């Protein structure tokens, strides 16, 4: 059984421009005052870890990673 994709929010300390969206494979970039939120859908844990490694390699500061189960679907891939 394949589990359905999950929504995640990744909170970073640095400010990223919205044009980083492509780099994080379609994640939405939300700029806040003191942090940046990357929100989007990941297929599985492997993809999520891939993002985290990318974040590490860029030297970005990770604040939190959260699963967004209760939020409305924000994915561009559409719901089933």
């Amino acid at each position, binding site marked *: 059984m394949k589990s359905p994709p999950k929504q995640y929010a990744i909170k970073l300390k*640095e*400010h990223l*421009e919205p044009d980083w969206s*492509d*780099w994080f494979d379609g994640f939405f970039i939300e700029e806040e005052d003191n942090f940046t939120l990357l929100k989007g859908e990941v297929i599985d844990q492997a993809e999520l870890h891939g993002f985290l490694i990318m974040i*590490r*390699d*860029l*030297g*970005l500061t990770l604040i939190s990673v959260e699963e967004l189960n209760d939020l409305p679907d924000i994915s561009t891939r559409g719901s089933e």
Partner: protein
Amino acid sequence: MGKQEKHSDTPFTTIETKLFSPALSKSHLSRFKLLKKLNSAENCKLTIVSAPAGYGKSTLLTEWTSDNDRKVAWLSLDKDDNDPTRFWSYIIASLQKTSTNLETVLKPILRSPQHVSIEVFLAELINELSDMRTPLTIILDDYHVIESKSIHEMVFQFITRLPGQVNLIIATRSDPPFPVSRLRSMGQLCELRIKDIRFNLEETTQFLNQVVEWDLSEEEIRILNRKTEGWIAGLHLSAYSMRNYSDKNTFFASFAGDDRFIADYLVEEILRQQPEQIKSFLLQTSLLNVLSDQVCHEVTGIDHCQSILEYLEDNNLFIISLDLNRRRYRYHHLFSELLRRRLALEQPEEIPRIHQQASQWFESHNLIHQSIYHAFETNDYERAALLIQRIVMKLINQGEFETINSWIEELPRPIVESHPWLGIARAWEMIFSGQLDLVQDEVSLISTFPSLIAADKDHINGHIFAIQACLYSLKGDQSAALYDSQGALALLPHDDYFARGISSLILGLSLRWKGDLSAAIEAYTTAQQVSEKGEDSFVYIYSSSFKGYVMVLMGRLQEGYKEYTSALQSFQRTGEDVQRGSPIQGLIYSFLSGVLLRWNRIDQAFEQAQKGLELSKRWGNRQAVHDGYFFYTQALLAKGDIPGAKIAIQQAKKNAEHLPPFQHLDVFFQEGMLHLKIQDLDHVAKLIQNLDIHLDDDIGYIHLQTYQVLAKYLRQREDLELAAQLLTRLLEIAKEAGARSKELDIYIQLALVSWIRKDERQALRSLKSALTIAESERHLNAFLNDGQSLIDLLKYAASKSLFVKFIGEILRAHSAGTHIGEMRYIEGNEDLISPLTARELQVLCLLAIGLTSTEVAEELVISVGTARTHIKNLYRKLNVHNRAEAVNKANELSLI
């Protein structure tokens, strides 16, 4: 269609630049505090230097290395190193650089096929390092690229077992997944973390004053330090960027006012300041993992790329020099990411073009790994598959299975199936990793490939034959192996040293089984020559030792001995002379013991047999262990150590359970010989019955030694007519094969049969044939295994002026040797009113070396109660009351 590469370029050409620390930039700041900390870290087994990209980890370690008397082995890792074989090969290569001579010993182990566990390799590596006298530090840079779980596990094992004078430093962006708490609690872990390694305000001040022309105020320095958070690469870029401003205030206004991700900001800032050509250069070459004048020119079309590269290096911008003569560079990983992002935003249409051109350029310069990388980046699977085909066989040869697997997994199934070489590679991998059950299916699949076009067909079919030959040989079907190895050799091109080497080796093995010994020697010689050209040390060692073995069978002891010793020498390291040996050499030592024994150099033979068995056990290869036991048992028997030989036979049986049935015959032979020696004919009868062999069987060469047991049994039982008939048949077989050593053994038995029948003339005739074979090569031991009657016959022959000198030599060996003790052993035992059983003798030996009854039980795999019963019985038979008395009495009677 994918022609195999010539061997001039091996796929695992060690990329030398990985083994050097990067060059220090002119503007680097010495960091005495950290260097001091690293110096004291020499006492820790593991030091972790952990910080994100651009904090100067490599620079720090480079400075420490250049400022240190310790030997340092440096290895910069990259993503391709996730293959365990490749990873450890690089470790060896880096150690080799420190002039420790490990390669000759360790490489064949890493590359040898069939269940050679990396653990065995690790144990050897630790052993080798333990022998080193000078302190050594191994540095693994960029360890975070390693994702392979098995590598992590082994590196951790490696760390925990490191000898005292060796320590490991790991530079990484994230902590390695090791369970380090134990190391930490033992004070064996040192850590340099971001808080230690980032520039503090003082260092920032010192650095900026050194590289910036303007006088910066304390406040300005504070801003730079705060915004970069002591991130060294950021300070470099800020300083560079500042130089392009007409006054520092404009710079600070822009710098302080922008709160973007600083690395991204600085990259954009610097790109903006560059002339269009350099900017374009930076973006377009960011896709390359290796930069050189030529490849940069290829993808950018810009002339004089070298001067741009040197400009970037001189200004400490983004790139790192990979060698001292400024030929090869790479981007600092962080900046290649940021530049690639800019490229994707500004010139996305260029990306596929650049990958294609890069892939082609690398291909034409024989850098196939890089070429494959770029082909995958544009999803050009067809191209990737063709490129992989070109080097796949060499990767197999090097044991880089993980690399091949990861590539094949990335390819779509239809592409894999339309490229037969990929299937061939998978089949070889199955052979080498012992998944024999899967091989046949894979091979059948390849044969049905529609793409088997004429140009390559023979070569591919040659490989299919070679793979099947290996498969049959491992399963024990010698005639099928013979047929297929011949098929392979007829089809394979002359420069495919890998497949030709293996096929010739298999051909030799199967010819030996068939009894065509001269042809076997020829095949082994070919295997030696081919594997030498292909630098395939595994096949070389094996073909040499089997060749020696066949020579010994043919009675050519001197030549066999030479063959073994030269195979051993091919291993000899040039540096320190450590007498330990490599596990893969075990077989040679075992074979060597066989020759020494024939020369009746029993103590030496025993020593080599022991060493051979021990090495093969360390290797863990069951076949080698099997052969090891054979020669070890033989040596024990020659020494007269019956209990020891019995234990060895039991262990050999256990080991042989996992080998094809025909191998069990070796154990039968030794067990039979042992019981014939101690005159336990009932036991031999049982063995023969169990094996279900009969006089009217059709006997082939491979059964010769089995029926020698039967013949000797018949002779000792005084079924002389039957014995003579069987021996005559065996003699014919041995003669036809040219197995002179076997002929010799059989003539001796024939001579004894006639001697017992009082047919002295016939006895002398057979003995004369035996002595003729034996004299020139000094086969002494063959005459010392049949007790007094053979000695009497020899004396009789000498009295008739036959071979007087040589017989004198045999008789001297007889009276000087352990054979006297051995005869006394039997006689001594018979002196007792009721002789000890074989089991009781075994127990007695174990008591004599000081084992407790519980330990005796363990050693013999019996219950403690049973062991006590044996002890009680043997006390009774010896008429003693305790262990000390028993041992004394046993010595008196020469029972042990």
